[in-house]
């Protein structure tokens, strides 16, 4: 299959809109604003080919099921009203009807035909999404699920980061889709950014893959969708879709070793002589742990704790002191440092741009 070069003609104009909700959601998709109606994670506001294909199919399925619903519910309502026992009932039993082969045949064959139609439409979209033919310039990412954060590695570009995925926008003239290989370090997780694609699970010992080609720049939200333990709820996903130039610049920045500054040597010393380095890595220093997020460019991220809190001095201090205050049950231990050490450590972390 070829990656879509033109955006789908808006399917809502072809199919009856079903409910107020779907109507407004679909209208949002048609205008393709950065802020979709109702929710930033609305599945009916797709901005990437896999999510788009699913959206078109879902409108077809919704139209079919809504038609069935209207027909059968009308029949039910009609029989309940029409055949209710009347006040002036004569007390005699109604005529007993035991069945009819013609009628049974009719309501067997018609559903079979509907099922065949639904299946054909579905099988087509399955093949479209699952078996794409990638063009030449593909960005490859390895996403590794951890309890309760995301590790991202760009093997071709030699970049390692955490929790905030950066990908280039994929426009019709030069498609640059991102192919994500999904691995897990511990339990099952699931990668779900509703506006970009359906979810795919990250299962240990069972590598999976998925792809996205976001049509517009911006921040896309999502979160882990497979129960993975205590803090499943705060394993949030943030995908930054950047223009090609911005993405190149971001990659260039991320490839640099950690920023070195003598002003914060005390904090650096604390970092390198406590348990921090058992789990965290800072490129170019002795810290090379891999249980926790890579901190080489910590301050380039908008959030900490997998999206659970904004990345600022106050939250960093709180996170080092008492992670449970932000994310109870996370695997980051409370570091038991005194105020002075926490300040020094935070100052060091703030230089990791």
């Amino acid at each position, binding site marked *: 299959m070829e990656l879509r070069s033109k955006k789908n003609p808006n399917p809502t104009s072809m199919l009856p809109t079903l409910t107020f*909700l779907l109507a407004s959601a679909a209208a949002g998709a048609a205008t393709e604003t950065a802020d979709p109606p109702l*929710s*930033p*994670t*609305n*599945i*009916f506001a797709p901005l990437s080919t896999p999510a788009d294909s*699913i959206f078109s*199919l*879902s409108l077809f*399925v919704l139209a*079919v*099921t809504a038609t*069935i619903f209207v027909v*059968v519910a009308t029949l039910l309502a009609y*029989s309940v009203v029409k*055949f*209710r*026992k*009347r006040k002036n009932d004569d007390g005699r039993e*109604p005529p007993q*009807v*035991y*069945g*009819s082969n013609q*009628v*049974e045949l009719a*309501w*067997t064959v018609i*559903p079979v035909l509907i*099922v065949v139609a*639904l*299946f054909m439409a*579905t099988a087509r*979209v*399955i093949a479209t*999404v699952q*078996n794409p033919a990638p063009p030449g310039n593909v960005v490859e990412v390895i996403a590794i699920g951890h*309890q309760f954060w995301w590790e991202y590695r760009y093997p071709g570009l030699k970049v390692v980061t955490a929790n905030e995925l950066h990908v280039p926008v994929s426009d019709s003239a030069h498609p640059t889709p991102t192919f994500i290989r*999904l691995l897990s370090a511990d*339990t*099952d997780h699931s990668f*779900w950014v*509703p506006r970009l694609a*359906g*979810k795919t*699970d990250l*299962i240990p010992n*069972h590598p*999976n*893959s998925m792809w996205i080609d976001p049509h517009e720049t911006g921040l896309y939200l*999502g979160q*882990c*969708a*497979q*129960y993975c333990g*205590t803090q499943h709820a705060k394993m*949030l996903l943030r995908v930054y879709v950047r223009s090609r130039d911005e993405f190149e610049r971001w990659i260039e920045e991320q490839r640099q070793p950690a920023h070195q500054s003598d002003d914060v040597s005390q904090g650096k010393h604390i970092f390198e002589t406590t348990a921090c380095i058992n789990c965290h890595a800072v490129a170019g220093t002795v810290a090379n742990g891999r249980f926790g997020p890579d901190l080489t460019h910590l301050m380039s991220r908008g959030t900490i704790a997998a999206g659970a809190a904004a990345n600022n001095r106050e939250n960093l201090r709180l996170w080092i002191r008492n992670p449970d205050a932000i994310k*109870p*049950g996370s695997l980051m231990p409370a570091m038991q440092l005194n105020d002075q050490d926490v300040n020094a450590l935070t100052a060091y972390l703030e230089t990791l741009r």
Partner: protein
Amino acid sequence: MSTDAIAWPRSESPSRPFVDQLHEWVTTVDHKRLGILYIVYALIFLVIGGVEALVMRMQLIRPHNDFVSPQVFNRMFTMHGTTIIFFVVMPLVFGFANYLVPLMIGARDMAFPRLNAFSFWLTAFGGVLLYFSLVGANGLYGAGNAPDVGWFAYAPLTSLAFSPGHSTDFWTLGLLVSGFGSIGTAINILTTILCMRCPGMTLGKIPLLAWLNLVMSGLVILAVSPLTAAQLMLLVDRNLGGHFFDTQAGGSAVIWMHFFWIFGHPEVYVLVVPAFAFASEIIPVFSRKAIFGYPVMVAATLAIGFLSMSVWAHHMFTVGMSSNANSFFVLSTMAIAVPTGIKIFNWLATMWGGKIEFRTPMLFCIAFLFQFLIAGLTGIMLGTAPFNWQLSASYFVVAHFHYVIVGAILFAIFGAFYYWFPKMSGKMYNETLGKLHFWLFLIGFHLTFDFMHVPGLLGMPRRIYTYEPGRGWEMWNLIVTVGVVFQTLGVLVFAYNLLWSYFRGQPAGSDPWDAWTLEWSTNSPPPAYNFAAIPTVKSRRPLWDLKHPDDPDWKYE
């Protein structure tokens, strides 16, 4: 056989000491008493499971709420799911089957009365074992008490590394033990229906309720066995150093999913087929018409039973199966819509041209039909693999299966309660309270589970103890929680009605509904051996034949 109630000496007088009565209940092998034991046991767990749901809904009423900790919330949804499936709906289904099947096929008891008692006590012990984890599972500091791995307990979260202590062991053992009880009861029902029918009752003449329970029992044997095998493997992994599901040592997390869902999907039909059975008995009686298309109803049920064994991996569309495997499970899943649709149309055709009386059992069955229709249609959406990639593991799927389990199964079971309560207790329930229960529960159900679909469509995953503001989920979650209040009120009215009617209700007589199956030909409650003389039948509606000797069914069947 006579339509007159058969006088039969009562086996006990009400003045006997409590300990003697208790002893009789505990040692009973009578199918009716075991049926009632199953039902009462399930009702107790229904209250427990309901309270767990209430705790979750209180926590989710607004974003970043701290009503309970994440640890407690995770235990709540694990215990709620496990309790409702294994210790509420299954015992309710088995309880009604135990009570009704022998009566409806003109038998004096189940085929294996002592196996019946053994199976009940195994199931009861399983439930106790699960809840004993609350006090017994604290194997290690910080290991937690109740299980918190989710009701389908995906590997490797259940391994010792991620689930220390003994809570997961209690979960495994509880299901293992009650699973053996389920298999015992299934064998019993199967044998009873095949071997204990009264003279004249060929397989083409047994009431639909018995046919459907026959299919249910077959499914239990086929479905619970793989679950039992998986539980044994998990026990070996956790306690004897096995590596079946230990991914760090080359085990497979996916194989657990296959084992679980090849149980889990037929299990849905184990629960819903008896709901079909209740509807198939209640709808004809209150429409005053014979069931439409009996042979087709039987064939459709068999088709559902057969197909339900081939659809399990539609729970696994997101685990990365090949496109061919996904397509196969889409097709098999959609195929099951055909026999299910046939059943809905046949119930509608039964009502068509009848004289429908809106007594409480019928109200619940009409709501069952409406809600099962919607549950089936959202099932088609979920069965469409690509749509499923968006919907699965979201609140949409939670709303969908609650539509099945509450909207269809529980509504049909409530209908069955009101319909057979006069037979089981000998007393008539209070119709006004029954209708109040119906309307409260209907409003609560729709507030909760209609609106629960929406946050799923807006990207809210299931099993999260809290959520971020600004995702557009707040209002929907609030409405969902408000609905729970109405459901709780409805259940309170139901419980009050049962108790009040049991002690104060009017005598019901043997046949309050002017019904047509054999259970209504004997006393209410039936004597220990059911029938003074084993009846002989000539059609599917023996009491219709007796009441209409000029126009009996056997002339047409």
